[in-house]
């Protein structure tokens, strides 16, 4: 980790993480209004992985994600207004109101979708990369998944095929220590080394601290370089922590599956705090200006979502089949 990160890029990291944090907090603050009528899995606390990885890939590279997809979508450049409208169930949402928070898509920036079935999007991501391989294209597909997904058979099956065909896949494991309320130690033996499992497929692997955006970026950059050199897929893993409940807007340290102490120790390691300490040039005034600029953008997006019409019911539009016309 000796490589220096340009000052501009470092500031960019901070802006993007702050933006995601403020968007998620705005959702949390308004959730009780009962207008966002779908499950929401907030990314608060996990912003650095999304931002660090997305900064290491190109705009044209692809990303596929899971139930906790807001940060991934936003870091990849997904349209904020369309995301908000989707959460509000509106016609102007990124899935026309059909998907909600767990299904985010913005193909214009390579955000290829997100699904909440555990591990379900991993092979689809490998398939996207397989298509680029068959078409002799060079885009990378980044697959974001949690450590819970590595307990699925499909995880290893996907790794195997990606390695076999040397596909341009960036496997990104976000280990936030819990699968809903189930801690890692009731699901995987202490000795289970996911990085070693991936490494056994002969691919590039590396771990890092997921709340340090610079570290995430550098690990991801190394992995991306390896993929672009034609070495096939790479697996990177980051330890991080979600601040709020698994699903919903609240804190839930009181209900008993994790301790307040644990939460506080991770709050001290909040990715925004860590990175702000590293940023030298950002004055209090710059910070406030940045916040107010982002607030304005969020307010605009929420207004857009609130004012947008609901999808009107038309049986023809509800048809789940694609047409065969060319």
């Amino acid at each position, binding site marked *: 980790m000796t490589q220096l990160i340009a000052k501009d890029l470092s500031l960019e990291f901070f802006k993007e993480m702050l933006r995601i944090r403020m968007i998620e907090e705005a959702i949390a603050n308004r959730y009780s209004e009962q207008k966002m*009528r779908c499950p929401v899995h907030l990314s608060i606390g996990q912003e650095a992985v999304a931002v660090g990885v997305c900064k290491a890939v190109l705009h044209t590279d692809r990303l596929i994600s899971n139930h906790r997809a807001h940060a991934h979508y936003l870091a990849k450049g997904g349209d904020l207004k369309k995301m908000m409208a989707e959460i509000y169930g509106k016609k102007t*949402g990124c899935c026309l109101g059909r998907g909600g928070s*767990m299904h985010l898509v913005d193909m214009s920036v390579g955000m290829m979708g997100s699904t909440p079935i555990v591990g379900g999007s991993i092979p689809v991501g490998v398939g996207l990369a397989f298509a680029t391989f068959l078409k002799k294209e060079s885009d990378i597909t980044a697959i974001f998944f949690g450590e819970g997904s590595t307990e*699925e058979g499909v995880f290893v099956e996907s790794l195997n095929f990606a390695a076999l065909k040397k596909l341009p896949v960036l496997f990104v494991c976000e280990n936030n220590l819990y699968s*809903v309320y*189930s801690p890692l130690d009731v*699901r995987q033996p202490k000795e289970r080394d996911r990085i070693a499992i991936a490494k056994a497929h002969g691919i590039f692997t590396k771990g890092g601290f997921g709340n340090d955006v610079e570290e995430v970026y550098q690990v991801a950059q190394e992995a991306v370089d390896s993929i672009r050199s034609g070495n096939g897929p790479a697996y990177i893993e980051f330890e991080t922590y979600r601040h709020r409940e698994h699903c*919903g807007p609240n804190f839930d340290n009181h209900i008993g599956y994790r301790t307040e102490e644990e939460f506080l120790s991770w709050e001290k390691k909040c990715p925004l705090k860590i990175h702000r300490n590293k940023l030298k040039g950002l004055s209090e005034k710059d910070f406030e200006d940045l916040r107010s600029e982002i607030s304005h953008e969020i307010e605009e997006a929420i207004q857009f979502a609130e004012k947008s019409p609901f999808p009107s019911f038309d049986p023809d539009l509800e048809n789940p089949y694609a047409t065969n016309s060319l």
Partner: protein
Amino acid sequence: MTRQIKYNEAILEATDQAMELDPRIYLMGLGVPDPKGIFGTLDGLAKKYGPNRVMDMPTSENAMTGIGIGSAIGGMRPIMTHQRVDFFLLALDQLINNAAKWHYMFGGEMTAPIVIRLIIGRGWGQGPQHSQSLQSFFAHIPGLKVVMPSNPYDAKGLLLSAVEDNNPVVYLEHRWLHGVFGEVPKEMYRVPIGKAKIVRPGTDVTLVACSHMVLEAYRAAKWLEEDGVSVEIIDVRSVKPLDKETILTSLQKTGRLVVADPDWKFVGFSSEILAVGVEEGFSFLKCAPARIAYPDRLCPTSWALANHFYPTAKEIAFEVLKMMGKKVKAQIYFEEIMKQFSKESMDVPSKEFTGPF
């Protein structure tokens, strides 16, 4: 007065009593010991029975189902729980290729007594991947039993029968039923698998329903009563084996068959009931039978669209009146029209439900 408890409490009581009685029973599933106790259906059991009998598991649905089946073949009585039907689809291989066939395939020596509790999601933007019921999917497979209790009494009695059954039983519970109250005796009792129940006697129409649709059928039957139509509601309780006798006996009396099913219509449970009515009760039928079930589309997330996905008592009443050659009441039309232009979401089971799941 008999004790009234909620559906989720009835599941909890049945599970607790069964575990006390039979040390072979253990629970597994992602989050079974969690602080919310799988929507209150397993509250406190982790503390009472410890981690070997109330076991959290890796997010490995297929392998864990296979492991559950193996342990059942080896003499245990696992109850597996998934927070949504949709999560279980990864394990269809183990369920269909192993659990359903083991007993028969190996000459009838061994049994695979596993109970798989699956929760059907609905509302609050559950969307395409958290809202599937799929009872006909499971019921299609010889070797599986499929039950769908609609009320707390059956929830308890069917679960107790399921854990004592020597076959794999898929126990489907609708998320909107967890909070429903009903009379439930404290002591252990069994509701036999494969026995339907006439929950409301009537003479004009046989209305066959299951799970949450039984509640909608009740509401429809009350409106229809005001219009002079007497509806007999049959709650099948078990989708498989199916109690054809109760259905056909009722059909012989009424001559009219309507099915209300909380699942897709195409190749669905409702199709099967119609097949029974036509194949085995053709001479009883006074008119073509009718079905109220989900349209052949995906369940959208936005409530504005989901309002149009789920059929309710109105659709049932509408069909029955049409079948009876009666004028559809203005009230029903009005409510239909209101639904089309509704600014109100219909995505929660009650006003107390404020999300997120």
